[in-house]
């Protein structure tokens, strides 16, 4: 993967995983979504999720997940969006954001939006991790004192 691809893939991750309401408010602040063309209307379908034998071995098909995908174009740039579950609006917005991020005059703003979404995601997982961390077992060992008995 080139650095450009890594960057786009990371931004797409933020658009796909990020909170839809937050994305809406960010795009509103930017002045809304420009006129886009729908290449592929939001469509709900399946992705077969794969695991690995033993965790790191050969792949196997675990089961499917429900996703909604959407593809749009904006000034020749093609944007893809995916959302877990049945979420046409979310998939459309993610696709729009991906297309916008490829337009030169919008890329900077979309990078910032991706970063906001990313931080929001981090905050959420951090909260989960924080709650979980309190259930960590703190072992202590009892001294039985046999050594001193004699």
């Amino acid at each position: 993967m080139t650095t450009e691809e890594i960057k786009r893939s990371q931004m797409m991750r933020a658009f796909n995983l990020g909170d839809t309401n937050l994305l809406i408010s960010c795009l509103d602040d930017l002045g809304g979504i420009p006129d886009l063309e729908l290449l592929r209307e939001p469509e709900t379908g399946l992705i077969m999720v794969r695991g690995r034998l033993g965790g790191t071995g050969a792949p196997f098909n675990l089961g499917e997940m429900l996703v909604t995908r959407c593809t749009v174009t904006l000034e020749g740039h093609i944007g893809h969006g995916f959302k877990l579950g049945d979420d046409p609006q979310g998939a459309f917005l993610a696709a729009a954001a991906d297309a916008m991020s490829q337009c030169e005059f919008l890329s900077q703003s979309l990078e910032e939006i991706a970063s906001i979404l990313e931080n929001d995601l981090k905050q959420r997982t951090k909260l989960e991790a924080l709650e979980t961390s309190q259930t960590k077992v703190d072992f202590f060992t009892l001294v039985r004192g046999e050594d001193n008995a004699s």
Partner: protein
Amino acid sequence: MYVTVKGGQKAIDAAHRLLDKVRRGDRKLKKISAEQIHSQLGLAVDRVQAEGALYAPELSAAAVGQAMGDLTEAVFLVRAYRTTLRRFGFSEPLETEKLECSRRISAAFKDLPGGQILGPTFDYTHRLLKPYAAETEPDSGDVRLQHYDGHELTPVNNDAAVDVNCQVSSGSPAEPFGAAKEFSSLDESGETASSESAMTLPEAGTQLKETINDIDSILIAEGLMESDQPEGGPLGDLTRAPADFPMDRPMRLQSLARADEGFILSLAYSCLRGYGSGHPFVTSLKIGKAEVSFTVPELDFPVTIGRIELTECRTSNRFFTPKGGQPKFTRGYALCFGRNERKAISMAVVDRALRYKELNEQLKGPAQDEEFVISHSDNVEAAGFVSHLKLPHHVDFQAELELLKHIQKTFQAGPETAEQSASPEAVKSKN
């Protein structure tokens, strides 16, 4: 003789109306929403997702409601629904070492890397039934968290605007978008949170998000445990091709992941009681969330498309000496959707039991017989076939009745002729 039976339509319509009424229950009570089922009966929803072989929490919750809590019926609804959908493709294999765990325990090692994290567990509860209504609500609003070393953390309001200035402590991966940008704040007040109130995550918290080597990868590196089977031939898919035996391990795992929990649990129990491959150690049991990556056909690189909750179990079992090698621990493996730890442990035990031929073990019980296990583990198939018994068999039964009457008549004629005519050959010739 074939008799057309008509006249059921009215009764069927009335039965379905009655079903709707019964499903709704007492109308003085509020109807439960799918969101409530999802949020408060999450383990029922997770079981439906695992056995329905479809990760779709909202849909599965709706299915639980529609099925009045009959989970096998809910699984059936989900399976039927998925057949109406197009498949977009296959994900990249999950990296379960990166699972963001809400629970991670090992029964084999006290001090596993990252520690024993209990998470929200039924273990160590006293199983005392509390009158449901009398149960006190856990604190809502401010989640006042206390770190285990005693210092209290800044209260965090879940619903409040997100504090983007939080400190990311050292262990976290590099900032993805270059240097962290200072977004003054998303606080509605427009004020930037002061650095004191910004939540600083203690180390234990960040550890959960890092990749922690599982204990078995350490044992593998030390040559004490068999390594994972590398990629073999083409990968089969149960949803596209019917089960065929002998079945390879990837296909078996796909089948076990969707198998009925009760069936797999009983089989695992039978193994432990001596009808299988013996008593394993749970080296790691994890519940957590993983990101799913998918390579969009139009793009050449994988993109994260969702985050799903999974349960993984790895076991360590009896040694095996491969040809020209040293004896090593063998392993069982389980992975399934949602929080399903009883299922996952059972699945790992059964996965290991099914490897008996490969590991030169004796056949001691049904849990080791893949044709028996795989053919009977799917509750949609099993329920379908068992349930067909309640459908009209009027004509078949009439035929049996006629036959029995005939045999009885010949019995009355005398024991010798009766014996002859009751024998299968005689019955065949009569027919």
